């Protein structure tokens, strides 16, 4: 079973989750998450060797829909909440969400 959660684990998880934590937050989470995970350890004692995981609550099969055209949101509606969208909505090459530079 997993060892007790460390500060290094917390830093690694924060980076996986795209969360920047302050030093204080990271210390607090190390202690709190260790406590919560320690509590969850009790599940290890449950014998689940013959038990499937729950993947779906309904026993019904997946529904498929017909592949037909239907109205969707307009481009302006979709872009209306972009935090950095207004300037790019109608420039000469089209309407986009703008992000910080990815490639030099």
């Amino acid at each position, binding site marked *: *079973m*997993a060892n007790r*959660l460390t500060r290094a*684990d*917390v830093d690694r*998880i*924060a980076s*996986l*989750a*795209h*969360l*920047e*934590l302050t030093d204080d*937050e990271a210390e607090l*989470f190390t202690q*709190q*998450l260790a*406590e*919560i*995970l320690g*509590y*969850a350890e*009790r*599940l*290890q004692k*449950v014998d*689940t060797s013959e*038990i*499937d*995981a*729950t*993947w*779906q*609550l*309904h026993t*019904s099969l*997946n*529904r498929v*829909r017909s592949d037909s055209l239907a109205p969707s*949101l307009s481009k302006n*509606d*979709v872009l*209306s*909440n*972009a*935090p*950095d969208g207004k300037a790019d909505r109608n420039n000469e090459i089209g309407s986009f*969400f703008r*992000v*910080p*530079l*990815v490639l030099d």
Partner: protein
Amino acid sequence: MPKETLGSTWTAIALRNAIHSGDVSALEVCESYLDRIQETDAMWNSMTAVFRDEVLAQAAAVDQARRTTTQRQPLLGVPVTIKDVLCTRGNLTTAASRILSGFRPPYDATVVSRLKQAGAIIIGKTNCDEFAMGSSTEHSAYGPSKNPWDPTRTPGGSSGGAAAAVAARFAPVSIGTDTGGSIRQPAAFCGVVGLKPTYGRVSRYGLLAFASSLDQVGPLTLTVADAALVLTVISGLDPADATSADQPVPDYTSALTGTVADLRIGVPRKMVDAGDSGLDGEILGAFNRALEVFREAGATLVDIELPHASHAVPTYYLVAPAEASSNLARYDGIRFGARSTHNETSDESDSSALSLMYNRTRKLGFGPEVKRRIMLGTYALSAGYYDAYYLKAQQVRNLIRHDYDLVFGNERGPHVHVIALPTTPTPAFQLGEHSENPLAMYLRDVFTVSANLTGLPAISIPTGFTEKRLPIGLQLVGRAFDEETLLRVGDAYERRTPWNKQSPKGVDPKQQVGQATQDN
């Protein structure tokens, strides 16, 4: 009727009938509720937005249409509040999070459009824990809501604003969401009815997702009959939600016969009496008295076992954060909500500007409880820990589901028709009581999380008060898609007890506004 008492004791059905018949106008109804909100919500902080001008225009249109058509919609002119995790077209929808500040969705959640089609008037949005993560409404960017029965205490959460809004008579109906008890626990704390339907009964389209296999939308109301009416309106298959169930939608109000003599009610004694549930003596007393009411009404009480019940909380607190960490990955500052950019000159890291923007946006946008759950869920899903935490929890979840399958029986007929439980181990706790200890708060979900892990429908109904006059909730859990029996049992209990006819002092129309706080 005298306008000042309008709304104080009125159910959605009574209001709808009075509007249908022309005894009251939708305009005077809405004005009365809007005035009460304006005068008193400073005490409860239950609303995050109130759409006064739109509401008055819609109410006037309802009155105009009523005079010119014979159409009588089931919620005609009835004011409804919506939890701030559900999209309302063009209106601020923030999940009580900074990361969605300024977000105005370009569409309505399916539940909102169904309510509108039924004639309801959406009067505002209600406060909640950020992204519905919490049991106290303290994790809200808008600040905590307060309990109308005692403003030093929490209304519960995460639909705390929704429950407080019904208790404070800001609308006869609030729409909430329930991932681990977030409709039922605040309903219990605020002395109102709260229904979590079967998973798939109500569309989740337009709900800002927390944990997609657990989330369900449902009503908080003053009576079980109102919950039945609202469920009839909001249920049903939705092409926009692939997990919405293709099951017929009955008229749930016609199931409320008042009788329970033909029913067996299961009581998981060991779970209720277990020392580690931290069950308060006054809650146990109220629970046992509720069972007596059912016995006297002719129901058969059956002792049942739910052997894996004690695993429900740890299972829930692995599954729900895992799903949350995945769902909340979409809040990255690109397509909607707030964006925080880093200071380029001080950046000496070799991370890309895009990556730094993600990290900074999420650091400033999310509050501590959301961060805690994203961290917990990311850990439970991460390489090397997935089998031990997430997969294990999903296996134990199956064992918990199997317990309920056995108790509810098979096609030859149910062993029991509903299960009775307390909703919460204690009455409403003090604001700030658990702010230093998240695990202690999680453990209080002991009676509610199983209904989400199993997808079963469950309802909390008022079942008395503590000596300090704090409301107590009785929980009933039903068979999948058998809300008819669940609501019938709840309504039968309500008919035999006085609890839902009481209101907090602060909302008594005979009292002056503000007096409630002076009493405390």
